[in-house]
Every structure is written in structure tokens, then in C-alpha cells.
């Protein structure tokens, strides 16, 4: 993919422009409805990351990196894991050390123990979704961009 000399195809671009918001919406649907139907954080995260791949193969790599900058990518990839770990830690904090780690029932989202567990699961799925989305996008951008890694005389560094 040579930037600046890329072929543009009006059909592909229009279809991508129309499809991308719907794919993102579908990914969010899969994550949010993970507790009620089929789906969950892993699947929704991968569907969301596929949007970046579609964008990059339709437009160009630099544009994709502009839409999803590297700093945001790095923050998001660890944020999901911190959400997961934090939800687990909240159970210990709110029960003053009597409940186990990841025992969502003791986090007072609502007054019902069972619904607390359901909500805790929802937040955990969101955390998984954020991490998976950011990591898949990060791996894709890393593999897609060329930085003269294979030039001779450049040493091992990129």
C-alpha cells in the first residue's frame, strides 16, 4: 500500500462509509447483550476491531492511524484489563475484605445480590471488549505498517 498513489474506488469507499457505523453499532450490541444472548466481550471486541481493518484497506493506513491514534490505542489496551481487575477489587473493597475477589454480588450497584452479579458481569464484558478491540487493532497496525525493517544495514532496530 503506497500512500498518495493509492487507487480509489468510489463503490468500495461508499460501501465502507455506509457499513462502518453499522458494524460498530453491531459490535456494541454484541458486547452489551452478552449477558442476555449469544455474544460477549471477546466476540464484540473482534467485530469492533474489524472496522479498523475495513477502514485501512479501503482508505489508507495513515488515515486509520489518525482516526485511532497510537496513544489512545495503548491506553485502551490496558484500560479494559484495569476495568476487569478493578471490578474484582471493588468486591473486596465494598465488602471490607469478607468477599472473594471477583464476587460481583457484593458491589452495591442495586439492592439485589443477583442483579449485582449480572451488572458486574456486564462491566467485565465491557472491559474484555475494550482490551480485545485495542489489542487486535494494535497488532493489525503493527503488522500493516512498513518502516524499513527489512532494509540491509539497518541493524536489528526498526
Amino acid at each position, binding site marked *: 500500500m503506497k500512500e498518495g498513489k493509492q487507487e480509489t474506488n468510489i463503490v468500495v469507499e461508499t460501501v465502507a462509509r455506509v457499513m462502518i457505523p453499522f458494524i460498530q453499532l453491531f459490535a456494541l450490541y454484541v458486547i452489551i447483550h452478552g449477558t442476555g444472548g449469544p455474544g460477549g466481550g471477546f466476540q464484540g471486541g473482534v467485530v469492533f476491531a474489524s472496522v479498523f481493518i475495513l477502514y485501512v484497506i479501503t482508505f489508507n493506513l495513515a488515515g486509520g492511524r489518525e482516526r485511532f491514534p497510537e496513544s489512545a490505542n495503548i491506553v485502551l489496551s490496558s484500560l*479494559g484489563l484495569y476495568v476487569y481487575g478493578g471490578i474484582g477489587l471493588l468486591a473486596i473493597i465494598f465488602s471490607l475484605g469478607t468477599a472473594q475477589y471477583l464476587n460481583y454480588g457484593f458491589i452495591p450497584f442495586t439492592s439485589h445480590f443477583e442483579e449485582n452479579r449480572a451488572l458486574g458481569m456486564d462491566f*467485565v464484558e465491557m472491559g474484555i471488549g475494550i482490551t480485545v478491540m485495542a489489542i487486535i487493532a494494535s497488532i493489525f497496525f503493527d503488522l500493516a505498517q512498513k518502516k524499513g525493517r527489512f532494509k540491509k544495514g539497518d541493524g536489528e532496530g526498526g
Partner: protein
Amino acid sequence: MTALILIIILCALFIYVAEDIPVFGDPNAPPIKAVKLFTMKADQVASLLDQHIVPGKLSRELVKRGLPPPSHIEKIPGMDGEWNAFIAKEESYYAKEEKYYWIKEEGDKVRVSRYAFVVRWIEKGLKETAVPNMVTYGLADYRGYDTLGETTVIFTAGVSVILLLRRRSRL
């Protein structure tokens, strides 16, 4: 530098959490519906079970094998010659009275089986977690530690690719 501190905090959290992991490898909980324990002669047992009485022979046989004796018997509705045996509250894994043994009449013998965890998973999951999806409450609640580990594996994969492909100077 910030990333290093965050990673150290995450590692410390995991080390703290690792002490909380429940015990694995319980031989009494394989992932099948019920585990066959033994068979015994059905001369008196079946009629006693029909009257909701716990046969002394059955209790003795179970105690001999190191299992808790049943507290009361109930017929499985719609099934002829099958009973559920419940255990009392004191049993170590369950705080409440639980369905524990599955007794079935086979010819002139009675087969005694123990329900596996899967049965409890299917029957109690919706009640305990208010989530209708069996896979999700398994993934995120009962096996929450496992999923935390899986997410960490994905995170580690991404960080490894960053380290290998994005380095600007020699490591």
C-alpha cells in the same frame, strides 16, 4: 515509566488475588451429569424410597465411602423408579440443602449416582446470577478467574507484538 508503574501495580494485584483462587481439582466434580458410585440390592430399598424414608443400608454404604448421608428423599416427577436424595446443611461445599444423589432402579438393583457440578450449574445459575445466558455466567462469574487470565493472555500478545515490531532502538 508510567507504563512500567502500571504494569507493576497490575502484577501486585494479581499476586494478591492469586491467594484467593478457589481450590481446583476436586475429584468429586467431573463435568458430566452424574457419577456412578455403586449399585446395591433393591429388595427393601425401593419401597422405603417410595415412602420418602432414607434407607439405613444406603446411608451406611455412603458413609463408608466418605460421602455425606442423605437427609431426605424425593421422587423425580414424571420418572418411575428414580429418586433425588438431598443432603443436610452441614455438608462442606454447600451452605444450603442441596440435591446431591440420583438413585435409579435397574431391574433388581438400585444404582446410586452423585450429581456433578454441571447439574447445579444448569439449575441454579439463573437463580444465583439473574443472567439467562448459561455461557456468560459460566464465563464471567463462575469461571471469572479463567477469563481474567484469558484477557491477560491477549494483552500479553499485543504487548509482545509491540515490543517486537515497534522498537526503535536495540533492546
